[in-house]
């Protein structure tokens, strides 16, 4: 099937089922940023230790002990009720985590920018293509959940550089931290009609002693009519609404993690 390598418009998915939660497809890579062991600075190690994720192998489990080849970040999961993942109360995932989540993303290409519209959370990130320069970390007054991002073409690869991320977002589901000095480089290459490859490098001298490189991640183009609900095509409004999330946490997540009955009352 012929394709234009610089045409990235469309709905792309790393999801095993096309859309909607669950696992990533077999050739898309997993939810983690990298299997390579990160090298933390002392400040980075302290930040890592403070994070309590709920993804990966259960902390201290036989399963966790059976996989010493994996970094401890992938072997320390605790129930969300005991964790501190800000995503558990519907805060934006930020980057690169959102790109590792197994839900579709629509790339909307405008003359001066590319919008990444993530289905889960209904998150919107802007990649400016108008030639502006990335602000220096020390010049950023207000960090953003979705950061500041600029893009350019290197041959047929879209190179995105971004910074200015809110430190409360995590690098991935396993609770790897980043500081407000993180600079993320993403390289998107459309390798065939329905596949984009993504390679990322995280540079954050405050928390990481050397740049950390991702594995190659992939996502696939969805047919336009693939996501359909009520006869309506296009991304679902998979908004992470606090009204839903707080009730779920009260009725299910917290009792399941603590063994205590649900607190009375509706928190919506």
């Amino acid at each position: 099937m012929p394709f234009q390598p610089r045409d990235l418009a469309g709905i792309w998915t790393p999801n095993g089922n096309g859309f909607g939660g669950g696992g990533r497809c077999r050739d898309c890579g997993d939810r983690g940023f990298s299997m390579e062991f990160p090298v933390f600075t002392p400040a980075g190690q302290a930040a890592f230790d403070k994070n309590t994720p709920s993804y990966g192998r259960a902390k201290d489990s036989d399963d966790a002990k059976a996989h010493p080849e994996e970094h401890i970040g992938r072997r320390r999961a605790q129930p969300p009720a005991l964790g501190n993942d800000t995503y558990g109360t519907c805060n934006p995932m930020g980057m690169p985590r959102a790109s590792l989540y197994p839900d579709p993303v629509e790339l909307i290409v405008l003359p001066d920018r590319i919008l990444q519209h993530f289905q889960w959370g209904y998150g919107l990130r802007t990649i400016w293509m108008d030639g502006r320069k990335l602000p220096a970390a020390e010049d950023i007054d207000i960090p953003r959940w979705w950061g500041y991002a600029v893009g350019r073409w290197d041959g047929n690869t879209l190179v995105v550089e971004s910074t200015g991320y809110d430190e409360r977002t995590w690098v991935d589901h396993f609770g790897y931290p980043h500081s407000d000095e993180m600079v993320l480089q993403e390289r998107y290459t459309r390798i065939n009609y329905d596949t984009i490859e993504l390679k990322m490098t995280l540079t954050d001298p405050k928390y990481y002693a050397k740049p950390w490189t991702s594995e190659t991640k992939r996502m696939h183009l969805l047919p336009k009519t693939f996501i359909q609900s009520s006869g309506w095509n296009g991304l679902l409004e998979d908004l992470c609404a606090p009204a839903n999330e707080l009730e779920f946490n009260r009725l299910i997540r917290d009792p399941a993690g603590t063994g205590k009955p649900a607190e009375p009352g509706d928190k919506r």
Partner: protein
Amino acid sequence: MTRSREVAWCVAVVLGCLATSGSLSGHHGTLVSYDRDQAWTAKAVVTEFRYVNPHAQIYFDVKDKEHAGHWSGELLPNPAQLIASGWTRKRSTEMLKAGTPITVTVAPARAGGMVVLMLRIVNDKGEELLGAAPPPGAAPRPVP
């Protein structure tokens, strides 16, 4: 994309693109809260079903001695996954009206209490609901 290309892609999704992560992960990381090695099965009666984000929920009563009580059940699929597997809101809520007798297989919470992860729901006709194989023509079953 031609129709044949679309079909080919969808078949590839069904057959080739299943989940890969070394450890399963629920939508909100809640899987780690449950012990699937201690799963149990019992007859139950639906008291409420919620077709909501971030996960669908089912509430039910069990009368048998060993597991008697009112239980809260988390389903791994969220509405997007249920839609993808053919379980629309209308179909799901009609099949799980309050008072519907069902047989459930669940994983208890590691911490104890009355919350469980739903592994299987079967109605009195023997039909598997929600997490079951999708109906003919529907998108593939969600993979947790």
